[in-house]
């Protein structure tokens, strides 16, 4: 099966309520603060990912492996309101990546980038991932 390295849209960063270890970064509690949003359903701030409700449903319906769903606190920065009048984004979930690249549908590469299977990519393409960079994954 083919695997692909995905670099999703970076719509913001970590908020003050994020709890994480550093060096390497391991997030225990995710607070994602939007600085702007181009409309993608899969969003990242290294090394975490959040997914819209409709994407999460598709992941669950298609029994894709390598992920766990958790809650995320979402806020909007002042910078966000400089670009957008309203804080209108879909409901997002924390998409925890627990798989290994090349063996499960969602996995981390050694550099902790997101690697997805062909099957997962087909699912992702059913939603909006226009801002994402996608390239074949060569371990």
């Amino acid at each position: 099966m083919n695997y692909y390295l995905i670099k999703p849209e970076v719509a913001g960063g970590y908020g003050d309520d994020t709890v994480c270890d550093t060096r390497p970064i391991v997030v225990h509690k995710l607070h994602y603060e939007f600085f702007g949003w181009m409309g993608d359903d899969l969003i990242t701030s290294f090394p975490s990912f959040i997914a819209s409700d409709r994407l999460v449903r598709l992941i669950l319906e298609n029994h894709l492996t390598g992920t766990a769903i958790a809650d995320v606190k979402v806020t909007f920065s002042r910078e966000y309101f400089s670009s957008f009048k309203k804080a209108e984004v879909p409901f997002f979930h924390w998409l925890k990546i627990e798989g290994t690249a090349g063996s499960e549908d969602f996995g981390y590469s050694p550099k902790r980038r997101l690697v997805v299977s062909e099957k997962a990519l087909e699912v992702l393409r059913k939603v909006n991932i226009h801002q994402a960079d996608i390239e074949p994954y060569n371990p």
Partner: protein
Amino acid sequence: MPSVRSPYSDIVQHPQLFPSPARIPYPAPLPPNSPVRPRVSPIPKPTNPPASNAWQNSLNTIQSIPSGLGNVVSGLGSFFPSLGHGFAFIGDTMGGAIAGATNHKAAQARYLAAADDHYNRQSDAEDTLTSTIQGLVPGSFYDLATAAGDAAGGQGGQARRTLRSMPGNYLNAWETDPASATLNTLPLLDGGGNIFKGLGSRLTEDGIANDVAGNTTRAAVSRGLGTGFTKVGGALKYTARGGPIGQLADHGSALLTSKVVKPAITASSRAVIKAAPTIATGLHMLKDADPVLRTRLKAPSYIPSPVRPPTPDIKSNGFRPTSPQFPDRPPVNLKPPTYQAPAPAGAFSISGADVPRHPDNVSPTVIDSSPPRATFGNAPRKEYRKTYFAANPTAKGEVFVHHGAEQQILKLYPGLLTPAKVHSIENLRGILKEHNNKVHLSQIRRDWDDYYANNPDPTEDELLDQVTKTDQKYNWAYWPRK
């Protein structure tokens, strides 16, 4: 005439985008019980029995027209021929189907209904096509012009942003070797073609997105076009800041000779061309375009090659002998450059297809791509916007304040930097709102995301290296520039 209600008639159509088409008069069908029979049947008898599914094919083809409109988006070059082919196919299949149906009145009524519907859709398709060209061509002219203006020392951020997002990414060439790229006419021409493709792709995405949202294809297309026009409008708006719109017309002949636009126009129907003053003007410009360029376009070898690095003999003879993109072509015999250097911001001089090329004895006025190395200072307060606007009072309302080294570094690398350093004026950048901040702010964040992935434990010096790299890449969008 039977009353035919278009399935799209409920959509509010913009009068300029979708003007009411003139109707083709068709003979009225005879009443069901009329004793009068037509002397000559309006429908010829078939000479060969049509395929059994010809009628369905006809309808399928008709129904595919709006989808074809959506494909405006997948490239104007491929769109026009496919549309024309679609219409031709409709004519063939419909004729066969109708002939197979003999003189039956129901078939006649069905023919009239289908023909009317077909004509309405065709007219709409042509109108949309025309609007598309009218909307995109000036925008592309603008992008082309601002790209040249930017490279010549003026402001062309909008064009750079547009080019960066295009397939083929011509900006790479500009960024790696801006001086040479500035001297090269042909990347500009193909840059124009790519702008078309890129805008088209974007329209497709918008169309699909709206389609998914439950709208009709037609609404999706019109919304997609609307988005395209908005972009063009945004680009034109930028000229209020002194962009070189005055020279846009001068680029017409050059752009219309690009590989995408010319076949697209020639493949479209005459009706479309007649209906579109812009295209008529464009064709006129094409006719008057540089004969060298026209000759090239006719040559079968007009197949773009991959971008190559500049050839080493550029400096030896002063001019680039051939384009690096089209290395197999004979040298262009362009007029001597009428370069005005150094040009003030926003100004440049280009006439017709003769895009100037710098002789070596004129220092190219490209943007200084080497801003000073980034540093950190000590912020007097945590409210960084206040700090920034205190130092740059005239920037208020014009820029978004952005951190060179992101604020979240404080969380991701605790102890590496202090808040006083992160919020210091030395680490603050103003990004002009006109430069479609959403796009490049997103790109800057993406660059930093890559950095975090590749540098799990950076030093302060390494962070400053990254800030400096970002400054070099986006200095064109900063105000004031670094």
